[in-house]
């Protein structure tokens, strides 16, 4: 546990690392969602056009 205390700076160090991790995860999740949505939007449009033809 003493390892995690980081002197008296534990809160500062861990919040920095934690925030960084969260931001990275958010970026990844956002990118994947956007990709999936783009593909499904295109698919929807293509299907719609097929039914019109």
């Amino acid at each position, binding site marked *: 546990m003493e390892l995690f205390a980081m002197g008296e700076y534990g809160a500062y160090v861990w919040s920095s*690392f934690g925030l960084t991790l969260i931001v990275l995860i958010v970026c990844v999740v956002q990118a*994947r969602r956007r990709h999936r949505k*783009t593909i499904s939007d295109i698919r929807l449009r*293509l299907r719609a056009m097929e039914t019109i033809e």
Partner: protein
Amino acid sequence: MWNFIHKLASPPHFYKLSAKMVPWFTIAGVLLVLYGSIAGLFLAPPDYQQGDAFRIIYVHVPAAYLSMMTYVIMAISAGIGLIWRMKLAHAVAAAAAPLGAWFTFLALITGSIWGRPMWGTWWEWGDPRLTSELIMLFLYFGYMALRNAIDDTVKADRASAVLVLVGAVNVPIIHFSVEWWSSLHQGPTLVREGGPAIQTAMLYPLLAMIFGFTFLFAALLLSRVRTEVLFRERRAHWVRDLVLSAEEAA
């Protein structure tokens, strides 16, 4: 060689090629960041002056460096897009912007958290580096706002390209601000005459984090550009075939 670059500029080729690169970049990035974090947090000795608080450097420096590198990439892509009218270049600039904004935000926040125990303050309005990094964040916001406000993709590409290039003046200001003006922020540690001013036990994890973050950034950027390319080329045949084929997962 020119054939390779020429092929790369073609969206379907880029899409296929980048699909292979993303996993490798991700793995390299994760491994380096894991090593850098563990070594930086637990193996590197505490700093003589700052104690364990200095360990924030292992996230702060990569974030700050990437916030500037992203802008440089955006500016170069914007320039290429404007001069050679390469659609892919514009797509790169568009995809990079949110990433750059996030890294700038991270740099500011981790810097602030680090500054609290070290300088006694969460923020220092008079500081040139803090101010110019904040300006950087606003430049990213302005870029994204302008893109958003223009409906036509080509027009949005070109207008935002001009904006990025105009704002590029800020990047050297951020980097040299600590040398030109008196600042709370310390001077350059790595890129200076006489080599890095930091002992190896602390240096190697830092380098690992910088490279690791860069690989992760590259992976993120490439995936975002792929999405961007799909959207821009949505009417093309190759996109149709790709989307309708069952193999296209995530």
